């Protein structure tokens, strides 16, 4: 009995440790930023467009979106408690002043230091990991590496504003083709004021030789960041794209409403991985990033494949559903997610799988971990349209609860309109298994390590889907977010 008590207090301590870990990546870089006055109106939209020297059609696109956005109200259906957002109190454009450096020497040394702190020194990255890094600070691309290597293969990997200038036809053809400006409130907002982001085009038959990676950073206070990513994978191509982020610690809430669009043609495959670790707010739930992102992939061609993998540990509020529209016959959509919430964080995340083509398949694996006083929800839609013969879906959503004040919720939606479809969903919710803890204890593993083991083992299925470099970072993040001293 006494032993039990000791173990209990011990595990209580650990959970207390686990839930009291501080954000380790909080710092602000001092870089001159150009910020336009706060507020949002047609003038601002025109100003953003003018600053970026955009063609007429893009300005029209922005204005159409803005006018539509004005007719919309912020949706309330999510299981989230979102403080009122004053869209007129945000500045919609911030750019580092020293634009488009030609070489590393031209890059602001302060910025390079920031990347060093984040663990991605550009030089080392170039030499060692073989990754092309399109580093985005605030809104304008500062540095793109490995462009030449990629150019040889015909791969385009550049900032979207550059793409608008250099490849207007491609951008015009695909921009807004997956997520239209009328899709939802935040998509409309993004279409109106998007600042920058990445554009990737993989030509026919090309297998991208390296992982493409973008490091997002929100850096200037009181600025919303409205990223826009567009990936087009032409017939028989393959690309793996990484997106990761850490943000400096600050008190003001920051809004982030990004759009990611992916178009996948015949026999092509896109793998999109995210590690998200923005500032989640302090232990009292003050501050933190609002992460409201629209991510969608269109499997346009036959035999195409899209795989979303995400590790969500940051942000005060996470609200996103990376989705797959499986239009081509035999196309495949996958979604792997680990979402960790701690303290007062809230997450309402999941996916949508829309089966339109014949013999389409989708797989959803979602692992939620809640601690502190957080709320963690999975919300996912599986829709099988009447023409989607032999569609197949399997969804698995597990939730792990680390104490008795947090919430873990599951909201799956299934709309089936075809008799040949087979759709399965299963979910479990439980706390850390006492038997497993006891088993580890018996074998000389301290409760501290055992909690770490179990949590990492629980998320393993998803972390394994990440590219090597990311898997390491993701594990670190899990430790930081959850294990406190344990990891």
């Amino acid at each position, binding site marked *: 009995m006494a032993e039990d008590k000791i173990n209990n207090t011990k595990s209580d301590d650990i959970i207390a440790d686990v839930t009291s870990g501080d954000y380790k990546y909080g710092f602000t870089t001092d870089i001159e930023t150009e910020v336009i006055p706060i507020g949002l109106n047609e003038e601002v939209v025109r100003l953003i467009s003018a600053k970026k020297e955009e063609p007429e059609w893009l300005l029209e696109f922005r204005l159409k979106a803005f006018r539509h956005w004005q007719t919309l109200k912020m949706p309330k*259906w999510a*299981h989230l408690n979102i403080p009122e957002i004053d869209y007129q109190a945000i500045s919609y454009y911030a750019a580092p002043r020293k634009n488009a450096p030609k070489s590393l020497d031209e890059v602001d040394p302060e910025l390079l230091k920031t990347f060093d702190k984040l663990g991605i020194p550009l030089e080392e990255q170039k030499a060692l990991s073989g990754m092309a890094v399109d580093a985005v600070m605030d809104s304008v691309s500062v540095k793109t590496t490995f462009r030449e290597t990629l150019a040889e293969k015909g791969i385009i990997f550049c900032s979207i504003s550059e793409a608008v200038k250099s490849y207007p036809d491609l951008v015009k053809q695909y921009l807004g083709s997956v997520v239209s400006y009328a899709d939802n409130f935040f998509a409309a907002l993004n279409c109106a004021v998007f600042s920058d982001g990445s554009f990737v085009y993989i030509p026919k038959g090309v297998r991208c030789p390296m992982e493409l990676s973008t490091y997002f950073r929100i850096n200037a206070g009181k600025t919303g960041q409205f990223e826009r990513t567009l990936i087009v994978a032409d017939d028989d191509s393959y690309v793996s794209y990484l997106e990761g982020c850490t943000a400096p610690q600050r008190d003001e809430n920051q809004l982030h409403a990004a759009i990611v669009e992916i178009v996948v043609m015949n026999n092509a495959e896109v793998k999109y991985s995210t590690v998200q670790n923005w500032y989640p707010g302090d232990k009292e739930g003050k501050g933190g990033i609002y992460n409201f992102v629209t991510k969608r992939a269109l499997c346009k061609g036959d035999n195409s494949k899209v795989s979303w993998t995400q590790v969500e540990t940051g942000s005060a509020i996470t609200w996103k559903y990376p989705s797959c529209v499986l239009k081509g016959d035999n196309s495949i959509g996958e979604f792997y997610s680990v979402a960790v919430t701690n303290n007062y964080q809230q997450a309402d995340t999941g996916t949508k799988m829309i089966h339109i083509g014949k013999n389409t398949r989708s797989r959803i694996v979602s692992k939620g971990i809640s601690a502190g006083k957080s709320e963690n929800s999975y919300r996912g839609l599986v829709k099988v349209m*009447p023409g989607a013969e032999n569609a197949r879906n399997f969804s698995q959503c597990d*939730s792990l*609860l*680390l*104490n*008795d*004040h*947090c*919430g*873990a*919720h*599951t*909201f*799956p*939606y*299934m*709309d*089936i*309109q*075809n*008799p*040949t*479809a*087979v*759709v*399965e*969903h*299963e*979910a*479990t*919710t*439980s*706390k850390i298994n006492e038997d497993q803890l006891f088993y580890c204890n018996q074998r000389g593993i301290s409760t501290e390590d055992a909690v770490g083991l179990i949590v990492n083992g629980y998320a393993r299925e998803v972390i394994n889907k990440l590219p090597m470099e990311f898997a390491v970072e993701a594990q670190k993040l899990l430790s930081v977010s959850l294990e406190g001293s344990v990891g």
Partner: protein
Amino acid sequence: MKQQYIDVYADNRDLIKANSAPCLNIIRDAAAEAFKITGFPTHKDEAYLYCPTLQYLATDYGLNLKQIEPKVSEKELFHCSVPGINSVVVAMVNDQMRAISETLPDGVVVCSLKDACERYPEEVENCFNSLASKHADAMTHFNNMLAQNGFFVYVKKNTQLEQPLQIVRMLDATIEMMTVAHNLVYVADNAQAKLLLCDHNRKGSKVFHDTLTEVVVAPHARLELYELESTSETTISHSQLFVTQAEGSEMLLNQLTLSNGITHRHTVVDLDGDHANLWLGGMVLNDRQQKTENYTEINHNASYCNCKELFKYILDEEAEGAFSGRIIVGDGTKQTEAYQTNRNLCLTNTAKMHAKPQLEIYADDVKCGHGATTGQLDETALFYMQARGIGKEEARMLLMLAFVADVIDKITVEPLRDRLRMMTEKRLRGEGVKCNNCSLC
């Protein structure tokens, strides 16, 4: 849409009140005010996302505000019976109680809510509106604004009732009509009862049937409640059922839809006492353009509670089914076990199924799970049977019967179970669900 009902109420307030159960009149004005503000729910409300009945509220229905009794002969009233069930049959026409087949057993009261207000004021006061007010939404306000009567079932303390109570509700109207009823069931401490609610309609009657039922299951009581709908496509049924279970109580709630028009069932069960136990299930057999939605919400507000939920749908032709299940485990509850299962068969390209099995968990000492599948019959099982000389159609029938069997098997009243097996089989063969010699439905 709401305006026509607000006007009806404003114009006939006194008439409604004069012909109603007194307890309903107490809450009526407040409900009317609340309804004025909320109006009807829309498909944008999460709980009514797929609700099929909402659009039918726009019709200009007649309301029997004077509570005139439609002419139905006694013979017709008691025609619907299950052979060998030996139940006490209470016949209702729309929202009015009409006749009881035999004397009620000791310790059991079945009467109209209006009578109950006079005869059992204390019991009515204890239970009435306690649940509806807690979970009130726009449809609750609407019901409270217009309901005039309903049934009252009271099983007294320590009464162990073996014989099932059967309430047959006949929907009968010569014009397009709306009936609004508010019912109350109270099973007192340590009592036991089986209650069977059968809904039928007279052929061709076009009725919008809006009911609100409150069920109070007292400590250590046990209630089995079977809701059986076998109406026709002209019936639109919107029902709200609110249940509270006290400490150590047990409840079996089985909602069976054999045939219907458009049905929305909104079921909320509060497990308010420790060690309460609930089995909630149902099956839906729909074809043509029938639509059925079951919305269920189980609130675990106490510790050591246990619930199991199982819903099965078979959808044929252009039928549309929806299942929204929510299990909510409240903060501070201990040792909760909750499982939810929803399985569906879509038989054609035009049949649609929407499933939303949801868990909301605010405590960590839980074992919760849910599963949902939508698919077709197992090809290998079909082949196995065909290889053994069973025709394809027959084999399909057997598999479908087996598919819904675990819902039917939960029925503890044996004659009813057999009857339902037979009716289900008939229904799946497309022969309708008429009882033998039934002249009504």
